[in-house]
């Protein structure tokens, strides 16, 4: 599903040049659950952003679903992203001014799903995440675990082929963290490909394969299943 070859990404400020990705090559197959680990600054978030088409590489190839997307422009990337990729962030990133229901509905609005169908799909996913009773609450009125469940609901409501999770349990206690990991595992079992960046060995054990990174390169790959 994803094939990255010799990818490079360099961040430049006036004085410093930071190599975030150094000719990295990775492949992720359809239906896989991959964890990316490594110390802070090793380039894992950069990799995730490029996989999510939020950022563009300086060099190298990125084939997504058989299409070379490394040179896509902003509009094309946005289009591909909204139909294929869901995101889960450490800090949830819900819009404070929108209710739970409206937050989850947002991706469907941007993919122009008709309103009647939106209602069915949002309610289904809220039910699935067991937060239906909170549908009219605003994010600040929820616990961290609940907020992350809303974020996961928002990530999956459009039935994406790929979910990218950036330390999804980083702001949660262990109980809530385990619940979220269970949600992701369930989604993976239903066929969604998941790529997750994490610091937690515990969370990484939920995945099929762990890619360890250092200084913008992969160092090892452990296959767990």
């Amino acid at each position, binding site marked *: 599903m994803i094939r990255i070859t010799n990818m490079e990404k360099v961040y430049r400020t006036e004085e410093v040049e930071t190599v975030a990705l150094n000719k990295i090559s990775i492949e992720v197959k359809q239906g896989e659950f991959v964890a990316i680990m490594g110390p802070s600054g090793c380039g894992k978030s950069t990799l995730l*952003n490029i996989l999510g088409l*939020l950022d563009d590489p300086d060099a190298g190839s990125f084939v997504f679903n058989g299409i070379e997307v490394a040179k896509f422009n902003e509009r094309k990337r*946005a289009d591909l992203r909204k139909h294929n990729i869901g*995101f889960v962030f450490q800090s949830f*990133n819900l*819009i404070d001014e929108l209710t739970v229901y409206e937050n989850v509905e947002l991706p469907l*609005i*941007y993919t122009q799903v008709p309103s009647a169908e939106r209602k069915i799909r949002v309610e289904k996913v809220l039910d699935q995440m067991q937060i239906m009773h909170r549908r009219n609450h605003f994010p600040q009125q929820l616990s961290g675990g609940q907020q992350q469940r809303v974020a996961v609901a928002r990530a999956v409501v*459009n039935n994406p082929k790929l979910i990218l999770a950036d330390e999804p349990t980083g702001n949660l206690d262990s109980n809530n963290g385990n619940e979220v990991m269970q949600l992701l595992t369930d989604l993976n079992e239903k066929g969604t490909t998941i790529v997750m960046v994490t610091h937690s060995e515990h969370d990484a054990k939920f995945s099929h394969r762990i890619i360890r990174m250092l200084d913008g390169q992969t160092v090892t790959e452990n296959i767990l299943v």
Partner: protein
Amino acid sequence: MFSTFFKIAFRNILKNKIFSTINILGLSIGMAAAMLMVLWVQNELSYDQFHEKKDRVYEAWNKAEFSGELNCWNTTPKILGPTMRKDFPEVETTVRVNWQQSHLLRVGEKQISVRGSHVDPDFFEVFSFPLVKGHSRQALDNIDDITITEKTARSLFGDADPIGKQVKVDNHQLFTISAVVKDLPNNTRFNFDILMPWKYLESKEGGPENNWGNNSTRTYVLLKPGVNVDAFQAKMKVLKPRYDSSEPKWQMFVYPMSRWRLHSSFENGVETGGRITIVALFGVIAGFVLLIACINFMNLSTARSEKRAKEVGVRKVVGADKKSLIFQFIAESILISALSGILSIGLVHLMLPSFNELSVKNLQLEFSNVNYWLAFLGFVLVTGFLAGSYPAFFLSAFQPVKVLKGSFRKAHAAVNPRKILVVTQFVFAITLIICTLVVRSQIQYAQDRDSGYNKNNLVYVFLEGKSFDSYTLIKNEILNNGFATSITKTSAPLTEGWSDSWGFEWEGKDPNDKTDFDRFCADDALGKTAGFQFVAGRDLDLKNYPTDSTAMIINQSALKVMKFKNPIGQIVKDNGIDWHIVGVVKDFIMQSPYYPTRPMIIEGAKGWFNVVHLKLNPQKNTAENMAGIEAIYKKFNPEFPVTIHFIDEDYALKFQDEKKVGTLAGIFAGLTIFISCLGLFGLATFMAENRIKEIGIRKVLGASVAGIVQMLSREFLILVGIALLIACPLAGWAMHNWLQEYAYRVSLSWTVFALAGSLSFLIAIATVSFQAVKAAIANPVRSLRTE
């Protein structure tokens, strides 16, 4: 998609009450001011545009050379209209309208004072003033026909049908009401209450006047459809010399109705603008006030960008493209603009009465007029777009990776758009403050100018009815009773020149000299009554010098033109009379206090008289004097009400226009400052919020409250300083040009700029320091913990 946009917008408005208030209040004040201006401009542009035949209606003008300059003016000989009808097949009809005068109408015991003119019978064929009763073709056919307005009809007859009823005009002639015209709209040059037939005027004057040399009336021309106007102008150009061989170069032309109101200013024979400059200026000011209010919106929206950044990031991640975000933010600002618009209608409604008083208009919000609502809608959309466009592009350009990772920090660039916008606002505000100060000092300067006579206790009364014949009796009785110390009969009030001429003859006059003199008449003791200062000779004195009925007084400017070494006893010929000069007075201000005094001659008792000037007796109180004078007038002229006018009040009216300009500039300066300060307040609040951690750390490290206030205020004061540097030359240039219109003018002094500068600094400090002090005295422990 729309519904979530508006939902977010509404929730944002409710969540940030201070900023929403600042935004909506600022925008609504700006919109209200702009709406008032637009109403005014629209009224000006619509002047006399409702006449059905407006494209064919013209006014006849003269163009003739005096003292090397080509003058254009619109009073014409009475014979012109009939001649044009006779000579030019292109002319459908002509209508003469003589000078509007005040008339007394009497029906039984009821009497009212009205304004009216004598006009040719085709008046209503040319001008579209609808008649509510009577027929336009017959409204002014008979010599005793009179047409009155609805308002006049109501005050004379209440609800009764006035047609066919009789009314006595000036206690003299009975007229029959032939038609009632709908009250005139507020956008026409005409403002009569009654119209009387031209025929009546002619019969009063002893027949038609055929004198081509007497320019005394306005002549309106209705051309036939399809007439080639250029060809017609060529005929007009040579019309006058055909009938008046003494003026071979004198031209005439017709001037189209569409240009009367706004363009009729001529310089050396060429149309050079006119009121249109003021209309354009007001339009520009309206635009600027609105822009300043929009700038607030832009500044506050972009200052709050950090708070909106996450939303932008999330929306982009879940699929929003830039276009839809731009659309969202513009929709949001249109919503705020709509709320402000509704509020501004309320504000306009409240301000209209005062604005009407200031602009001497009767502007109204026509709620039942669909066009008004369409214009309002357009106005809201334009404002929303104007205010929302920059924030929309600014916010929608955020990179999701950066804002969601929290690495988003606003740049502390030395020059950023927000600073430029604040500077722009203050440039306008300071410019307007300087303009207000200069206009005021110019008015003060002209008011302080010596008028050349003593206005205290000086009053005048118009001669009416039997007071013409009983003047001597009235005068003696007032003087004998001690209500006045001195009385003189004059041709016009001292504050108004009613007559001028270049036709005087004197010994040694250059035959090419066409200097125009003001002409005034007084029978006796004018110098004593008015308190003139004589530089040579004496006052008019009929008692001691019986030949003073042909005596003349001239002013110093006239003496300069006439170049007499010994003016006393010199003869000046006018209207077939040899006037002998008995005195020379110091120049006094009769016309505009802003211009040099014109040369002037005052003719003695053989002149013509309309007005009586009285110097009230200072030994008695004014009320007693006035009651006494009124009683004596009533005794000799019982049919007319007595109105006593005070010269000092009339004199004060000479400053009215400039005072209005001053008031208007002051109001707009105040509004601009207020709106700009609202914005500054908002920015200061955000700045204090954003730097709360920095302030906490500084305090922990030992910074004083004063030091922090200074640090927070400095940035804004620098911006105001830059604005001052730009505004000073700008305002200086504008005011220098404005002052050129006045011969007597103040010089631009640095104190005005210094005052405006200190004023704007003070206001800015007061605005910013509230937030700065609040932030500086906050407990640092708390701010550091919350971070």
